[in-house]
């Protein structure tokens, strides 16, 4: 083939451009540490990396959400522990007051302590987190949820439960509303509640209560009435006598799957109402106890009333403790969930980073080798060009 000088030059320039452009791309890679910096260098890889980066960033966001949720739950957990301590102290005080030897002055002193504890529980219920949000207010985090009232405390929050996303499609509840924590302890034994009538004149005192036959328990309301100091009858809400018998102090009365133990000496006409448990505020329980402790205990009947009030209060405190423990165990379970999902997220993040690095990370060894061979080719091309360019017949025509 016939070769001309301008062909040689054009071909040399084309080769030079290509080589320099390859060297520039390789250099870009080495200085950025990336195998490709535009999508055209690896369209499929670029799409994958964009996807991985998004999942990675989201996973990191979930981890951060989890940390924030852990903070909130820890705050709640410690508030619940304090609440249990206070309830335990309250229970101790109630047991102390239940002793018939306590003088009115002692009882009054106990009442003062009870009121102090009530104040403490109120302040626990109004706990705020670092940002000033009330943690037991449901969604109404800017509203103080509990305020003191004559019958205990009123709840101004709502029943909302805030959730935080800790994984793809996985959310965790980060708070419990005050209604659930403080207002939903059951009365009585948690299933049914026995209340002495306010008009009782005897000294009948409520003892242990239990459901002995869950199959027979239907949840209706009943009344235990004393037709004589040693005889009782149990009627249902329709006035029908369910059972009757001879009263012996301390011996259980059994009906409709329930067992109620009364002690002391009830008077004829005294009655005890039996009804399914309802929700009662912790504050009401405490307030009732404080109120009862300040009543006169001059007569045996009044003493019996106090004792019955204290029994009701202890029942209420036990249920509140139960409720608090239930809430606290769900808090613990949520913390576990967060820990688990954060561990999963960490593994996932490591894998994603690995995948991204596999696709987009530069293999330095081969990049440097490439650069080396490209530079060698370039200098060889230059050398070859200058050599052939120097070859011209005209050189020999001189002179």
């Amino acid at each position, binding site marked *: 083939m016939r070769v001309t000088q301008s062909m040689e030059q054009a*071909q040399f320039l084309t080769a030079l451009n290509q080589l320099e452009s390859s060297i520039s791309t390789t250099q870009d890679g080495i200085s950025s540490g990336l195998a490709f910096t535009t999508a055209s260098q690896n369209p499929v890889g670029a799409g994958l990396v964009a996807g991985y980066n998004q999942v990675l960033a989201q996973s990191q966001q979930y981890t951060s959400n989890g940390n924030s949720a852990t903070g909130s739950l820890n705050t709640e957990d410690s508030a619940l522990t304090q609440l249990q301590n206070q309830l335990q102290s309250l229970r101790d005080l109630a047991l102390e007051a239940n002793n018939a030897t306590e003088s009115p002055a002692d009882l009054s002193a106990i009442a003062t302590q009870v009121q102090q504890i009530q104040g403490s529980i109120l302040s626990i219920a109004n706990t705020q987190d670092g940002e000033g949000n009330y943690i037991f207010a449901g969604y109404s985090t800017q509203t103080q949820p509990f305020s003191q009232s004559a019958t205990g405390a009123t709840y101004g929050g709502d029943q909302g439960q805030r959730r935080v996303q800790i994984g793809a499609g996985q959310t965790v509840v980060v708070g419990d509303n005050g209604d659930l924590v403080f207002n939903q302890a059951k009365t009585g034994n948690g299933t049914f509640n026995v209340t002495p009538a306010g008009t009782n004149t005897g000294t009948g005192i409520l003892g242990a209560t239990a459901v002995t036959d869950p199959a027979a328990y239907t949840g209706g309301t009943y009344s235990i009435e004393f037709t004589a100091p040693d005889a009782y009858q149990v009627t249902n809400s329709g006035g029908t006598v369910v059972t009757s018998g001879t009263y012996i102090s301390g011996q259980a009365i059994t009906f409709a799957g329930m067992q109620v133990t009364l002690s002391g000496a009830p008077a004829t006409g005294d009655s005890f109402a039996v009804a399914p448990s309802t929700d009662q505020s912790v504050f009401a329980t405490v307030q009732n106890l404080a109120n009862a402790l300040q009543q006169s205990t001059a007569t045996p009947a009044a003493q019996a009333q106090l004792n019955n009030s204290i029994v009701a209060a202890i029942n209420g405190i036990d249920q509140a403790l139960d409720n608090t423990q239930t809430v606290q165990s769900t808090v613990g379970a949520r913390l576990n969930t967060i820990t688990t999902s954060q561990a999963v997220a960490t593994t996932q993040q490591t894998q994603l980073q690995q995948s991204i690095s596999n696709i987009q990370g530069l293999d330095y060894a081969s990049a440097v080798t490439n650069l080396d061979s490209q530079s060698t080719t370039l200098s060889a091309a230059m050398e070859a060009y200058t050599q052939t360019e120097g070859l011209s017949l005209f050189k020999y025509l001189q002179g």
Partner: protein
Amino acid sequence: MSSIFGIDLSALQAFQQAIEVTSNNVANASTPGYDEESIELETALPQDAGGFAIGSGVGVAGVQRAYSQAAATQLNTSQSTLGQLTALQNYTSQIDNLFGTTAGGLTTALQTYYSGWSAVADDPTSSSAREALLGDASALAANLNSTSSQLQEMNSDVNTRITADVNQINSISTQISSLNTQIEQRTGSGQAPNQLLDQRDELVSNLSQLAGVTTTSNSDGSINVYLGNGQPLVLDQNTYQLSTVPNEFNASQLEVASTASDGASISSSITSGDLGGLLSARTQSIDPALNQLGQIATAVAQSANTQQGSGLDLNGQLGSALFSVGAPVATSSSANTDATTASVTISNIGALTSDNYLLSYKGGTYTLTDATTGANVALTGAGTSTSPLTASSVGLSIVLSGTPASGDQFLVQPTAQAAGTIGVALTDPSGLAAAGAIQTSAADSNTGSATISGGTVLDAANPALLDTTTIQFLTPTTYSVNGAGSFAYTSGGNVDLNGWQVKIAGTPAAGDTFTVQSNAGGTGDNTNALAAANQQTTGVLSNGTISVSGAVGALISGAGAQAQQVNTAQTAQTAVNTQAQTNVQSVSGVNLDEEAANLMQWQQAYQASAQALSVANGLFTTFLDSINGTFS
């Protein structure tokens, strides 16, 4: 004796001319389009020497240029294809570089924006988190605006270059026609106008880089030049000028027209050369990228605004739109004979595509075709405001201001403007609707075990959405709403009312009540913010199968794949073109060594002829000397 002088003289003249041709070759060794020339010598007519003939010297028969029509045509075709790919590559790699591996930072901006919602969800009452989210939203909008404006810049660059190409094509056409005239004259007078032919061939070659052309030769030496599709540019001495005209639907985009087409656009038939590359860059790269970006912007804005409307802000109001975004555009063709306009709304973001659509009205029937694929799109409705034309398969709803004239056309661009126009409409951080619209509660006095779910908003536009509603169980299996009616209860069943939906499950007791009410005051609620943060991965596009992030990933890979494909094609075509150039050079190029050898050959021949002349002179002198002795 005198014939010796004649022969030598003719030889000296011929070799002098041969040296001139060689020198001219050397002088033009680097001139583009120059074809190597060679002198053709012939024997002069012999003289009769009585019974035998003696040659009478040498004559110049002509000067030929080394030219191969086949090689030149091959090169021109190759240059047209290369020109098209190079122009296209210019834009595909600009887009590729603009997008990089993050769609120009869009992936980061989107991620930051959704993380902003997550931060608000973590602490819904924090004003700093809310301020930050508004900032993130602005940054996202600014990113889309800036990417869109850079793509728009590319479109105006395309316009500038189309105008420049058209001017250059016109100038070259004029030069070719004037060369045609000169060549005809020279050809008529019997001279070979090599230099003019070289010039004309070079012009055709230049033209082929701008737009694919074909040529035909006429017997008088002139040529005709046609654009690829047969549109004439030069016919003998006449030229047909090209011009730029605005696109019939979009005045900001220039199309190519010709006096031969009476000013109608011939863009669709220009597929090669620089001009073809510019036109295809616009329709295949820049506009689709803008549309896809717009589709993403529309999806982000619409889903955020819908979510805002389903929740309550810090003031207890249903959230107002977070983003403002340009609506779909419908432009009437400049050829329409009726002033009817069309307005388009997006009826279903899930069905929305990034394609443009052509709405035509003919013989009382509307037809909608996909401007990219040409596929027909099913339409229902009459095009009036009460019965809009609905293209449910592509999520569009079209209302016309009247009845268009038969044959009128409208171009519907659902997403072209969105990326350029998206902005943040909300200025007050407390206006971010982080809280759900409703809250539910169970009465403390409930004795049953039934629970109520948090509730979701189905229809934020329901005027009674925020009204307080009490659901009271009359029996464990029936309930009343606000004290009225008796509805059957199924555990776990949905209760849909006033635009919300709640789920009650478990065993209620008679008298149990549940309340659904406005969440005003529930400032610590993050239900809505969580839902907004989740939109990042929620399938919004393609009927819920592709998330916003997925669409961005597809945009990056799509642009990258196109750039890669064009790069590969361009590299391959460069090799083809180099080969074609080599072929032409091989035939027509000047080899300096060859010229040096020729020069030596002609020099020696010249010297020999001169020597022959000297010998003749010697002979003559000898003869004279001998005579001189005789006559002195």
